[in-house]
C-alpha cells in the first residue's frame, strides 16, 4: 500500500512537472483592430525564427489562424509569427512579425490606406492643401509649382516637391513641403519648406515619408 502511494506520488509530481512545462510553452497573441481598419481581414502564419526567409514561410502549410476580422486572443506555442493582410481596394498590405518567445504580445492591425484610396483623398483635398501652403508661404505663388504630390498613411500626411520657376538661378533648388491634416485643416509642418526633410528637424514626420520625399530629389 505504501509503495503504491509513493508510486502515485511520483507519477503526480511527474505529471505536474510535465503539465507545467507544456502550459509554459504557450503565450497569448492578442490581435486588436483599430477603428481605421474596419473591413480588414488578417491571417496568422507560423514563420519560424528570424534566420528563416519569412516570405517563403507565408503559405497555407504554416497558417495557424485565418479570417480574423475582430479583436481576438490566440494561445500559441512560443515561436515567431506573421500577422498578414492582403492589399485590397481600401487598404495596403499589412505584415507584422512578432515573437512569442519572451511573453504575451499585442498587435494593433492598422494597415495604411491603399494607393487608390490615397489618390482619391489627394484629388478631393488638393485645392485646400495648396491654399493652406500658399497662405502660410505666399512666396510660393508665382515662384514654385507643386509637383509629385502624394498623400501618405491614413490620408493624414501630404508631401510634395515645390519646383522653382522664379528668377533666382542660384537658389533654384526644388523644395520639399509636408503638411499634416488637423481636423478639417491642413497645417504646414516643414517651416519653411526645405531642401531636405530631416527627421532630426521634424521628428513628428514619419521616417518613411521623409525618405520617400528626399528620394524624389536626391
Amino acid at each position: 500500500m505504501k509503495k503504491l502511494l509513493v508510486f502515485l506520488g511520483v507519477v503526480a509530481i511527474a505529471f505536474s512537472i510535465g503539465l507545467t512545462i507544456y502550459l509554459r510553452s504557450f503565450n497569448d497573441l492578442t490581435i486588436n483592430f483599430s477603428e481605421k481598419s474596419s473591413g480588414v481581414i488578417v491571417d496568422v502564419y507560423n514563420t519560424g525564427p528570424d534566420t528563416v526567409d519569412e516570405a517563403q514561410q507565408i503559405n497555407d502549410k504554416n497558417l495557424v489562424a485565418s479570417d480574423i476580422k475582430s479583436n481576438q486572443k490566440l494561445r500559441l506555442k512560443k515561436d515567431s509569427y506573421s500577422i498578414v493582410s492582403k492589399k485590397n481596394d481600401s487598404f495596403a498590405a499589412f505584415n507584422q512579425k512578432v515573437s512569442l518567445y519572451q511573453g504575451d504580445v499585442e498587435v494593433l492591425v492598422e494597415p495604411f490606406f491603399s494607393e487608390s484610396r490615397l489618390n482619391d483623398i489627394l484629388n478631393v483635398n488638393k485645392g485646400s492643401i495648396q491654399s493652406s501652403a500658399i497662405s502660410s508661404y505666399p512666396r510660393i505663388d508665382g515662384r514654385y509649382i507643386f509637383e509629385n504630390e502624394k498623400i501618405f498613411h491614413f490620408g493624414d500626411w501630404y508631401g510634395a516637391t515645390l519646383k522653382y520657376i522664379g528668377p533666382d538661378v542660384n537658389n533654384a533648388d526644388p523644395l520639399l513641403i509636408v503638411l499634416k491634416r488637423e481636423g478639417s485643416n491642413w497645417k504646414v509642418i516643414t517651416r519653411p519648406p526645405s531642401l531636405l526633410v530631416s527627421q532630426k528637424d521634424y521628428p513628428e514626420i514619419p521616417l518613411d515619408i521623409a525618405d520617400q520625399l528626399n528620394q524624389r530629389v536626391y
Partner: protein
Amino acid sequence: MDQQKRTRLLIILAIVISICLIFYAVYQATRKYTAEIITIPNFTQVTIDGKPAKAGRIYLNPGVHEIEGSANGFETIRKTVTIQEGAPIKKITVFPNPNSDIALQWVDANPELMKKRESLAGDEAREEGDRFRNNNKITDQLPYRSLIFNIDYGISKTNPDDIIIYIKAPSALDRQYAISQIKSWGYDPSLYSIVFTEFSNPLGVR
C-alpha cells in the same frame, strides 16, 4: 528551551535571513540605475534639472538633463548630459573648479582627491569621445572636400550628442551631389540635420 527546539528555531531564522538576502540581491540586480553622480569635493551640492540630487547611483529618465554642481569657494559647474535608453550606467562627474583661497587650501590638503578627480575627468572625456563617435559614425568621413562641395559638421547647440552637417555647395546641382555623397557612404540624409550654407531659401529661414 530544549536543544531540538533551539536548532529548529535557528534553521527557520537561517531560512528567513537567506530569503531576505535573496530578495535583496534580486532587488539590487533588477533595480534600474541609469547614472552615477560623482562629486569632488564631497560637499558639492548637485541639482539635476533644477532639483536637488545626491551623489551616487540614481535613476534618470532617458533624454537630456542639466546638471549643476556648487561648493563653497568653488566655481559652479554646469553640464548637459544625455541618458540613452538601454545604455550602461553613465558616470557623471561634478567637479566645481577651485577659484578662491579657501578652495585652494582644500586642494592643497587633498592631493589624493585631486589626483582622483583628474583621472575620473580624463576617463569621462574619453568615454564621451567614444560614445560621440559611435553615435555619429558619419564624422569618420568628415570633413570632406571636393572640387565642387565641402561637407563638414558641428555640434548641435540643443543636444551635445547630436551633430549638424554643413554642406557648402554653390549650386543646386552641387548640393545634390553632396547629398549623393552622404548616401554613397551608406548614411540616410533624412536622419541628419543638414544646413546648406550657400543656399538662401526664397521662402525664408527656420
